[in-house]
């Protein structure tokens, strides 16, 4: 329990690592991020996975859809050409997983982009407008928070067909609420700053002000929350695919491969473990990267915690 003492003592000492302005915003951020070894490892791992899933399907002699009836459900082996084994139709598991990564990462990035676009414009608009507009817009966000989105997205994808674009628009449209709230809070405090007043005196109004002066100052926090949105989106897409509501076969996403693998796990555990491992590593890396970016770009956010 003497550790309470240590923590209290540590907090009394003023923080030494105050950002120096000499490197500029991104310079400081990059330096801080590099200082966090784990976040840097996460970034490198993600880079390798992205490169692999872009290049391997192109270099490999196998494709993700042609069945090979002489090679059913082979376990992973170093020789014989199938590094991670084959699936129950004899298709190379490595290539299928790489395609799954492409889909997961693609949907993750696209849907996060949608949610950032909606969230930033909604939050900055509400915060900058203030007054009744702000109250109404944030009340809408409050109501949407109580809407059970998972059933709605399931209904959407079931009823309107399993279109790939529909999936990420649906996910993006439901995950902007957090960003909108955070951005609004930041905008409220930015609005009081002198440079905004100066711009107003110079005649900048409305969306011009938001675009040129408010949003650029939000970039740090938006980058952090966008990075933390990507893994949630990837997990959500995997969840939909697991329920059989995602992409069409023969194309597979990591979620649908986990579902297929789970039904065969007693006889061929590699069919479950390989896609599950890739999914977890991708999400793990994005989470670590987001934590690292938050410490680097938004030092106060680290203590605020995430809910």
């Amino acid at each position, binding site marked *: *329990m*003497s*550790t*309470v*003492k*240590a*923590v*209290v003592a*540590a*907090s*009394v000492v003023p923080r030494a690592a105050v950002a120096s302005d000499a490197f500029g915003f991104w310079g400081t951020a990059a330096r801080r991020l590099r200082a966090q070894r784990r976040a840097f490892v996460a970034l490198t791992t993600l880079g390798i996975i992205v490169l692999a899933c872009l290049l391997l399907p192109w270099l490999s002699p196998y494709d993700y859809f042609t069945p090979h009836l002489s090679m059913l459900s082979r376990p992973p082996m170093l020789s014989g050409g199938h590094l991670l084994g084959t699936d129950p139709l004899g298709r190379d598991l490595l290539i299928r997983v790489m395609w799954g990564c492409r889909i997961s990462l693609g949907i993750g990035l696209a849907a996060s982009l949608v949610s950032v676009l909606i969230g930033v414009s909604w939050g900055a608009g509400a915060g900058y407008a203030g007054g009744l507009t702000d109250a109404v817009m944030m009340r809408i966000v409050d*109501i949407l*928070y*109580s*809407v*059970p*989105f*998972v*059933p*709605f997205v*399931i*209904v*959407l994808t*079931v*009823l*309107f067909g399993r279109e790939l674009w529909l999936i990420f628009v649906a996910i993006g449209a439901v995950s902007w609420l957090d960003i909108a709230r955070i951005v609004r809070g930041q905008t409220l405090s930015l609005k009081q700053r002198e440079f905004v007043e100066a711009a107003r005196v110079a005649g900048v109004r409305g969306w011009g002000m938001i675009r040129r002066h408010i949003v650029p100052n939000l970039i740090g926090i938006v980058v952090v929350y966008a990075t933390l949105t990507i*893994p949630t989106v990837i*997990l959500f897409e*995997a*969840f939909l695919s*697991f*329920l059989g*509501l995602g992409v069409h076969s023969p194309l597979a996403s990591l*979620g649908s491969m*986990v*579902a297929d*693998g*789970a039904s065969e*796990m*007693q006889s061929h*555990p590699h069919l*479950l473990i390989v896609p*599950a491992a890739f*999914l*977890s590593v991708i*999400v*793990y890396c994005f*989470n*670590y990267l987001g*934590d690292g970016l938050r410490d680097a770009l938004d030092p106060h956010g*680290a*203590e*605020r*915690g*995430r*809910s």
Partner: protein
Amino acid sequence: MLRYLLRRLLGAIPTLLVIATIAFLLLHAAPGGPFDADKRMLPEIQRAIEARYHLNEPLWRQYLRYLSDLAHGDLGPSFQYRSTSVNEIIAQGLPVDATVGLSALALALLLGGSIGVNAALHRNRRGDVVPMALAVLGISLPVFVIAPLLILIFAVDLHWLPAGDYVAGSLSHLVLPVMALAFPYTAYIARMMRASTLEVLSSPFVRTAYAKGLPPRLILWRHALRPTLTPLVSFLGPAVVGLVTGSIVIESVFSLPGIGRYFITAALNRDYTLVMGITVLYGALIILFNLLAELCYAWIDPRVRLR
């Protein structure tokens, strides 16, 4: 206090109305009707069935009829299971869901809370770094990966616990589902508790308590612990959403007779009333837990006034 509760419960009505309306419009805008699949049905019979369920009426009449039934607590007959009502289906499934969900939540709160506080007390040492790295892994492993892995280990390999074939009232059938559902929450809660404990321990009142010579153990238990619970309480609302999502997966993996399993088949079969009923139920649960969270706020922090 009573007035506050009453006002909040009245305030929930418009939100529920919005949820019911979106669900209604979405389902009726979708292509296909509940009785399209039965191709061998004579047109007269199909017309008679549609008249029986009032599907031949104009949309606004159906909408008003649905709302007035809803106001009387009647969710209507199920289109798919023609002899049962939606109320009966929910009454059968909800106890199972509630048992699994609440046990998982309680387990996650106890385990995650103690891990988080302990990690904060051992900041940046092995007792912090290792559990927190595991916690990031925990939020990166979705329920649908954990659940099959648990079955693989505890049911298939070790034969300790049953994997499926739920028997009513059997506790051993609930152990694995509760573990799988609690896993990601434990990780989330541990991360949150660590952040909030660090924040509270660095606040002036803890320093004062320390300065006046209070033993660290007493500082933690008597003063610091209660305010650290604040972010945990705000997590309660989102947690329920996650439990709902998780329960859909858990029920299909462990073949538990809950509600979530019905939801997807209901959406696939255009069982309008069942889909709407479950959606409204989920919405009501989220609102209820948000209200509970606010009551807890007032209990934790006496400065909060419920008005």
